[in-house]
């Protein structure tokens, strides 16, 4: 038995320490000289509930991104080439991910806190946003887009699909109320207005359409059926949607009426 550490073991330990130190040195240099760092603690920034885009200077933008089950607000952002964007991210419900693929911006959207990162978009093109943190049953359907365009004077948010519009002068008040409820009650998470399929059937053109059920029957969707679908979602299950069941919602009769009128209006 020897009381000494073997020479080669000593050498290996020294080499390992040197390699680790060199590695840390490179990371430190990248952070100090190239600004390659990770999100910090933000002080005095309260979580927000609505997405928005504002222009600070010519090429400098500030984007507020809200993640919620199961979409981003805004879902689409258009910006000019060279835009330098300060991005603030928060969540309205559970933890989501916010990864702008093709860039180094990869943030956790945590409810109750605000996260921050900056991106400079040097090249034109489409930069898809992916939610990369499991956020529930429709997590795979949670994505968005940032479009970087040449010769654009100012960035904008194309008609936010999910934005509550000002009351159109000719829109009946019940429809407006229903539209609001569609957002507030979270129907938006599972039912789209533009024909795309998220978790449940799209509301587009639903009124008067034939709905086929798992028990083999079908019904032409009328007011009574839509009302029943909202109040007793499990009564008739639309074929092809049996894997994720629609939850029951606490809604008053007036609210149901508003929702029905709104759903009818989505053509």
């Amino acid at each position, binding site marked *: *038995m020897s*009381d000494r550490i073997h020479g080669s073991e000593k050498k290996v330990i020294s*080499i390992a320490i040197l390699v680790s130190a060199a590695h840390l040195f490179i990371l430190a240099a990248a952070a100090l000289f190239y600004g390659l760092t990770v999100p910090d603690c933000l002080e005095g920034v309260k979580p927000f509930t609505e997405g928005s885009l504002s222009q600070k200077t010519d090429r400098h933008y500030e984007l507020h991104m809200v993640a919620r089950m199961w979409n981003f607000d805004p879902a689409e952002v258009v910006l000019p080439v060279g835009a330098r964007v300060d991005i603030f991210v928060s969540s309205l419900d559970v933890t989501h991910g916010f990864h702008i693929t093709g860039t180094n911006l990869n943030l956790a959207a945590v409810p*109750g806190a605000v996260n921050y990162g900056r991106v400079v978009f040097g090249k034109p093109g489409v930069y898809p946003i992916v939610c*990369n943190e499991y956020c529930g049953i429709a997590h*795979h359907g949670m994505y968005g887009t940032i479009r970087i365009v040449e010769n654009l004077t100012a960035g904008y948010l194309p008609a936010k699909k999910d934005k509550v519009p000002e009351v159109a002068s000719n829109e009946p008040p019940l429809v407006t109320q229903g539209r609001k409820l569609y957002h507030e009650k979270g129907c938006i998470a599972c039912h789209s207005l533009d024909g795309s399929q998220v978790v449940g059937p799209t509301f587009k053109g639903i009124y008067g359409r034939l709905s086929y059920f798992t028990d083999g029957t079908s019904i032409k969707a009328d007011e009574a059926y839509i009302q029943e679908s909202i109040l007793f979602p499990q009564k008739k299950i639309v074929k092809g949607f049996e894997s994720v069941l629609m939850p029951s919602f606490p809604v008053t009769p007036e609210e149901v009426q508003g929702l029905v009128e709104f759903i009818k209006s989505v053509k």
Partner: protein
Amino acid sequence: MHIQPAIRKIVLIELILPIVLLIFGIYHGLLQTLYRAGYIKVASMLGINYYQGLTAHGVINAIVLTTFFAVAFGHVVVTSCLKKNLHVGLAASGFVLLLIGTLLAAAMIFTGHASVLYTFYPPLKAHPLFYVGLALFVVGSWLSFYSWIPTYRLWRRENPTRKVPLAVIGIFSTFIVWQIATVPVAVEVLFMLLPWSLGWVAEINIVLARTLFWFFGHPLVYFWLLPTYVMYYTMLPKLAGGKLFSDFAGRFAFLLFCVLSAPLGFHHQFSDPGIGVNWKALHTVLTSFVAIPSMMTAFTLAASMEHGAKSVGGTGLFRWWGKLPYMDAQRWLFPYLFCGLVIFIFGGVTGIINASFSMNSLIHNTAWIPAHFHLTVGGPVFLGILGMSLYLVTGLLGSDIRNKKLALWVPYLWTLGVCTFSTGLFMGGLKGEPRRTNMGLSYVNPESTGFRSEWISGASIGVLGGVIMTLSVCLFFFVFFRMLAEKKDLTKLDSFALIESEAYHDENIGFVRNLKPWIVAAVIAVLCSYAIPLYNIATSKDIVGAVPFAPDSPMAQGTKK
């Protein structure tokens, strides 16, 4: 082998039960690859939703299998290396709690009340019984560990001048790491998640919950790894026909892991808000140091194998590699350990990439991450568990392996499969493909508005790897269950022994003789790196509490009537 009849029974159940559960774990693993590549474009198969199956896959393979194995392996190592009895009461109650915890968690997962994945991040909420199951499971592992402590103390008293056998140092280090790691997660589960899921408190601090989870989550990976390190240091040299190059290196590595495996969990939270960048940098530095014992291990093991190969006529700088017993059916355990080591080279390198501060943002939560950890926990750890379970169950039952040649092929096939699988996922991950996502319903579905054609090739390579991995485990199941059915001869138990390598350099170095100073150092390290950030997070005015959500509804559970 010295083993009490009661401990022998407990060990056998603790080894066989998780291998039976593994049938579900592997099935859901294969399904993941098919969903992700769009070979099946559905939300559920056979009544089990994608995310539910993913939860089962993670909990069974990474928590249940690994913990049961570590406990059973530890029972055998401590009792047979020290040739002393264990505290049966503690070992038995530990086993019962592990069992009840597993059954509760499994019941909640398979009935769809806990589709929260094995990281169970709030504010996604599972059924309270799921959290109860986790808590019981953790306490069960503690009691099992405590059953060795009187044995160890007694041995030390009776042998004041002898070195504690290396395997015992290794397995104690494993459970010291586990003991430190499980305190924060127990706090998270018992004081945050459980009362909140029962509705007793309305809101919890999500940043705090995530931080406590990863305070546990990183040392967890060393808890997985260290039993395999015990096999590497104490069995691999002898299997290779040689001796352990340095006994000191083994002790030093294990003790360094005790100190360094816990104080660095922020490298899983680089993307999180609410944690200061300087603390994240400190954890990066500490993570970099934890590579030191692994590099030392790589050298020591290579040197030990070289000793083995050269003692049977191997020569040259590299030619001796050809002399190792790759295809020796009598030493079928060798490739389980050897292949794991080879896989781990890639697992280790990609792990350093993950932990490299700003570099992490390129791959955080992408498919790159599962690609990485299938080369660590799915490589050396999994192969070590399979090989050692087969070895121990055969020996403890007095049974025989009929198909040693087949047993030999399992690790090679697995290596081929897992490397293929990970290659596909690395490719996708670098292009931004997310982990934990039922991509068949969106990203790899041409009818979806989210279609991303560039992710298909990687995901398809993942399927190929998944199929090979599944074949390999099926082969293992065949060998294992056939061995169980073989005629048993209990008289063989006396001659059954753990493989124990001798040391080539058997150093006597003072500072690796005692566990105590290292445990103190570990606690100090953890306090230095976590006390202040935890205090800041818990008292931050910028973090607002969060109410619970069920995974299948966008309606807050707290406000539901």
